[in-house]
């Protein structure tokens, strides 16, 4: 049994396994022909430099952050605010849109390796991320942090006073970081990190925590769609949201910013915001602008 065949057989089988597995991956990527409805901007067309693949715009999302990006339970399609926006941009540039989904860490890592043109699943520009090798588009919307509570508690103070409260959140989220970093001055009793938004909301519903530290757009849409939940208290820590690019792609970023400006100016951005968030959301002028934001999308 210790013949020469075994190593060779092993190599063949490993190769077979890896090749066959590549087939299983093909479903991860959805190629969508750019939406037909929008008008084509001739000046911006064919002007986008440094695309990962010629004629294509590859926008990576997690597919797991409603209402920015979510998998439709009936169709299996990736949809949401980020997806509609990406489709609008690709359509105006005459590019074919490709929408791979990976988890958030792999999203940023893959972008850093040059696998994708743009990462977008509710990402906000931060100095830390700029130091990590990312650059950002002009802001397209803005969000803050608010307390998601049960409807019966909507009159409570939210993050204005969390003394003695149990706070829940999503593991690894920027909102979680805000709570953990501010532990000393906030004076809450305990923090509990859940795996995702669904688990966190279930935890709130079951009374394991008193409030959740959530993105205010996500919290507002949850409250609108589900009577069980509401929001309470002030929005804290407002900040812009942008497309994320790999450093060195500033020319590509600038070319696409031209189209984003048009999408904001003609009111299309406001339509996409209303469709997914139910409201129009302030758009800061630049990524370093401190909140609260007054600028509203035209058409609001």
């Amino acid at each position: 049994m210790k013949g020469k065949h075994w190593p060779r057989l092993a190599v063949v089988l490993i190769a077979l396994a890896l090749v066959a597995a590549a087939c299983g991956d093909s479903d991860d990527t959805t190629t969508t022909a750019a939406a037909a409805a929008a008008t084509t901007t001739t000046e911006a067309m064919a002007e986008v430099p440094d695309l990962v693949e010629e004629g294509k715009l590859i926008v990576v999302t997690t597919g797991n952050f409603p209402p920015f990006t979510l998998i439709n339970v009936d169709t299996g399609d990736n949809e949401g605010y980020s997806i509609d926006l990406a489709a609008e941009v690709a359509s105006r540039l005459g590019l074919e849109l490709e929408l791979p989904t990976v988890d958030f860490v792999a999203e940023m890592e893959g972008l850093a390796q040059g696998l994708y043109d743009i990462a977008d699943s509710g990402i906000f520009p931060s100095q830390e991320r700029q130091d990590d090798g990312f650059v950002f588009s002009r802001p397209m919307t803005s969000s803050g942090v608010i307390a998601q509570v049960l409807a019966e508690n909507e009159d409570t103070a939210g993050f204005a006073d969390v003394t003695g409260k149990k706070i829940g959140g999503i593991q690894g989220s920027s909102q979680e970081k805000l709570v953990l970093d501010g532990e000393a001055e906030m004076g809450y009793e305990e923090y509990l990190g859940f795996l995702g938004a669904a688990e966190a909301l279930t935890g709130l519903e079951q009374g394991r925590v008193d409030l959740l530290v959530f993105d205010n757009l996500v919290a507002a849409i949850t409250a609108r769609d589900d009577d069980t939940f509401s929001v309470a208290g002030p929005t804290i820590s407002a900040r812009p949201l942008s497309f994320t690019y790999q450093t060195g792609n500033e020319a590509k970023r600038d070319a696409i910013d031209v189209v984003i400006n048009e999408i904001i100016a003609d009111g299309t951005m406001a339509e996409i915001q209303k469709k997914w968030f139910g409201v129009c959301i302030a758009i800061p002028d630049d990524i370093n602008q401190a909140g609260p934001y007054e600028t509203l999308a035209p058409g609001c």
Partner: protein
Amino acid sequence: MELDWGVVGRAFDLLLKGTWLTLILFFFSMVLGSVLGLILALMRMSRFRAARWFSLGYIWLFRGIPVLVILFFAFWVVGLQLGLTPVQSGILGLGFSAAAYIAEIIRAGIISVDPGQFEASESLGMTKRHYMRRIIIPQSIRVIIPTYMSNSILVLKVSSVAVAIGIVELTGITRQLANATRQPIELLTAAAGIYVILTTLLIVAQELLERRFALKT
């Protein structure tokens, strides 16, 4: 809280798609794990000291590291170097982890065969290669099947950890849909049901294999 089971029906096709990816992960990591496991088991009983030590070291290391950590390593280090897709990294991680356990399962089967069988084969003038294949391995299979199949069930279930490296297998799609619909309990129950069906099939396979290799009296 009220449960609405209609969501399971709507999500059924997507859950099946996730199940298919779970099966791909399971099948190929078991093929990889079994081949490597057999090689490691034979190396562990080799007359060459280097082979014995290598095998011992591998089994020690891979049984000592949690599967999640092995998967991260397969994805972020090995996968990055070799340019592997997440699924390929997942198969590599799960397969290399399973190999350590399978090696010990196979070795346990081989050493369970009465030493008299080895001596009798040698006294008949059979070569080691010959008697291992014709005398020892067939007898050891009876001992190997139950533990090997138990380990297979573990590998099937532990493949759910692959969600951590971005593979949207059964657990992955369940979590995505739970977030999209905010109905985690209904969808997790459906996923649990599918896992039970799959492990039941493995248990039936074990029963059939045991009968096939049972001593004929």
